[in-house]
């Protein structure tokens, strides 16, 4: 289990290799990478800047990760989330989960992303062709999270 909130980019291949290295109980490794798109809500995006709440961010991410471990039999997991200013095609977030079997790895990774989207204190502001714009929450993100509630 590990959470990192950082400005610098990450090396996906390296991170995934380190996550499973030396653990032959891992049969499935699921990962998700969120990237900056050059178009959002009809406007072209030059840069995306992420602001966060240091301290609360790490707490929330660690809580979400621990909840995933409670729900599924995970061998390992990793959450890396960047802040600062980024350009299209840059990595924003990496979530990876490893388990003996694929179902747990898929579900835990998806669960972490859905919760991260709605419960981790990050905010995005875009520099677009129509000026600076704070990204709005999406109803679909709340619905995606609520799927996991019983």
């Amino acid at each position, binding site marked *: 289990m590990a959470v990192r909130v950082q400005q610098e980019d990450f090396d996906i291949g390296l991170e995934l290799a380190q996550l499973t290295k030396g653990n032959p109980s891992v049969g499935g490794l699921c990962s998700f990478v*969120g990237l900056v798109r050059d178009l959002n809500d009809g406007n072209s995006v030059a840069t995306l800047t992420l602001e966060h709440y240091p301290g609360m961010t790490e707490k929330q991410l660690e809580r979400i990760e621990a909840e995933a471990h409670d729900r599924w039999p995970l061998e390992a997991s990793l959450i890396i989330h960047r802040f600062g200013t980024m350009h299209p095609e840059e990595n924003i977030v990496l979530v990876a989960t490893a388990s003996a079997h694929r179902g747990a790895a898929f579900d835990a990774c998806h669960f972490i992303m859905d919760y991260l989207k709605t419960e981790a204190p990050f905010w995005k502001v875009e520099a677009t062709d129509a000026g600076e714009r*704070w990204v709005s929450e999406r109803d679909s993100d709340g619905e995606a999270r609520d799927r996991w509630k019983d």
Partner: protein
Amino acid sequence: MKILYFAWLRQKIGIGEEQIDVPGDVTTPQALVEYLRNRGENYALAFTDVSAIKVAVNQEFADYETLLKPGDEVAFFPPVTGG
């Protein structure tokens, strides 16, 4: 009391963080918002519609009726949009 503002709330108010000695009757985030609105036009504008503003107390999501203690850290921010 330590008060933090994030995203467009921070922009509208003009600062990200401040330390305020609030009056004794400011015992909830709701009362804190009322108090802040009277500190200036920038606060009043930022807090026009609190239904769009989330609150955290001591780095935990809270609601506007949560009881505050001296020394608490209270943060106001729009719905989160990370990931």
